[in-house]
């Protein structure tokens, strides 16, 4: 069975995602090579960083096209993490205006919590699953995950599988068929996070990927 590919686009901490899969005993490989993305069983797009820099890095490495071909073209299972959730939207207003991968209907804007709470939304917050998702099996509603973001995804309700509450019910996770994405950091959310990643690999197994 081939490995899970973790996309390396020069954007920051990939080690923690790789460490998390290693803890689960699940083979993974960090790569920027389109050939490796082609042969991988699934693609994980992590992201710690700014939307514009991320899209520029993806484009300059030809990874936007490679990801498009694999995930949208060939239906390869996908998991976006944090910035990786925002990048699949149409666009973001972080540092101006930047187009994203446009895989799902959605836009990324700055968080505006109702009671003027501090931004970024950083810390452990309770996940509220709102639709059945393979990622959240055996994850109790209200389980804590680590969030750290100043921007959030706005998208149609039917795509949303979980929300979190921070002066507003923000999107915490989406699913569009074989495309999953989460706003929180499963690789930094201790056991709850490992459960989500294990659920992702179980879902891959069930699909025969």
């Amino acid at each position: 069975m081939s490995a899970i590919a973790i996309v390396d686009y020069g954007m920051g901490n990939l080690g923690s995602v790789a460490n998390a899969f290693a803890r689960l005993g699940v083979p993974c490989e960090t790569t920027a090579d389109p050939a490796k993305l082609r042969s991988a069983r699934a693609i994980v797009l992590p992201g710690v960083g700014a939307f514009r820099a991320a899209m520029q890095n993806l484009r300059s490495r030809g990874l936007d096209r490679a990801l498009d071909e694999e995930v949208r073209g060939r239906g390869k299972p996908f998991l976006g993490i944090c910035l990786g959730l925002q990048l699949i939207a149409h666009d973001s207003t972080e540092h101006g205006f930047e187009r994203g991968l446009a895989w799902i209907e959605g836009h990324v804007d700055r968080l505006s919590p109702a009671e003027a709470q501090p931004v970024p939304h950083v810390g452990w917050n309770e996940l509220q699953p709102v639709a059945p998702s393979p990622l959240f099996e055996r994850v109790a509603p209200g389980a804590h995950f680590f969030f750290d973001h100043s921007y959030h995804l706005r998208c149609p309700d039917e795509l949303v599988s979980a929300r979190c509450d921070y002066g507003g019910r923000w999107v915490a996770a989406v699913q569009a068929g074989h495309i999953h994405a989460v706003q929180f950091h499963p690789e930094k959310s201790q056991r709850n996070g490992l459960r989500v990643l294990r659920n992702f690999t179980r879902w891959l197994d069930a699909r025969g990927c």
Partner: protein
Amino acid sequence: MLKARVIAVVLVKDATVVQSIGFRRYLPVGRPDIAISYLDRWGADEILVLHIDGRPASPETVASYSRHCQVPLSVGGGVRDAATVQRIIQAGADKIVLNTAAYDDPALIGQAAERFGEQCVVVSIDARRGMAYVDGGKRATGTEAAALAVGCAERGAGEILINSIERDGSKQGYDLELIRTLVGAVRIPVIACGGAGTPEHMHAALAQGPAAVAAANFFHFTEHSVILAKSWLAAHGVPVRLDSYASYAGRELDAQGRLARLPEEALDHLRFRYVPEEVI
């Protein structure tokens, strides 16, 4: 709802965890990897490692910290340029901590935020009588800590860590007025540090409104230190995450956060049940 964070700080000098007293005396504690793995096991909400020998942590060192850390890892100390920021984040840190550089070269804050996002940038400010000092407390800036914090937030800092030099290592409690001033000055999360001696001190600090309390020395000398502190806070109505293999729910903790002895009847009938750790 978002919980208040309890952050464990690990000060490293010459590859050793040290206890800091007033920014002047440093006593050895032990190995960083051991400290980090236990703080992680005990459910610290984040771990913040500061190198205080003037040189930034190497990528290999950061990678070694990251390996043991399943909670967000912030790394700082001696970070003065964008290349170092990039190396540290790509080696495994989730956030970079800037202190002296945030004052001497504030453009670095913006550079780091543009590349990695403001949520990756923590500016740490050390204060005496409300005034900011850099270079490990040795150089006065002549600027109020609050004013410096405001400027750094404008430049793109995601969080402010405010540390009281006077309270450092004192175990006399946090500088509540300093925390209150900083919380009132900025619209980004504030992390309070310096002086924790009891969970009661953390409670008083959190009552000033910061997003998080941090402590270094406090967590390094007792077993389950993080779990006990959080249990005490939870028992006193502070919303914190309690997610570790040990629970002290229903147990009495004194003002110092120590477990009270169980009553004789309970001790007489105490039995232990083996609960195997869940394999995820």
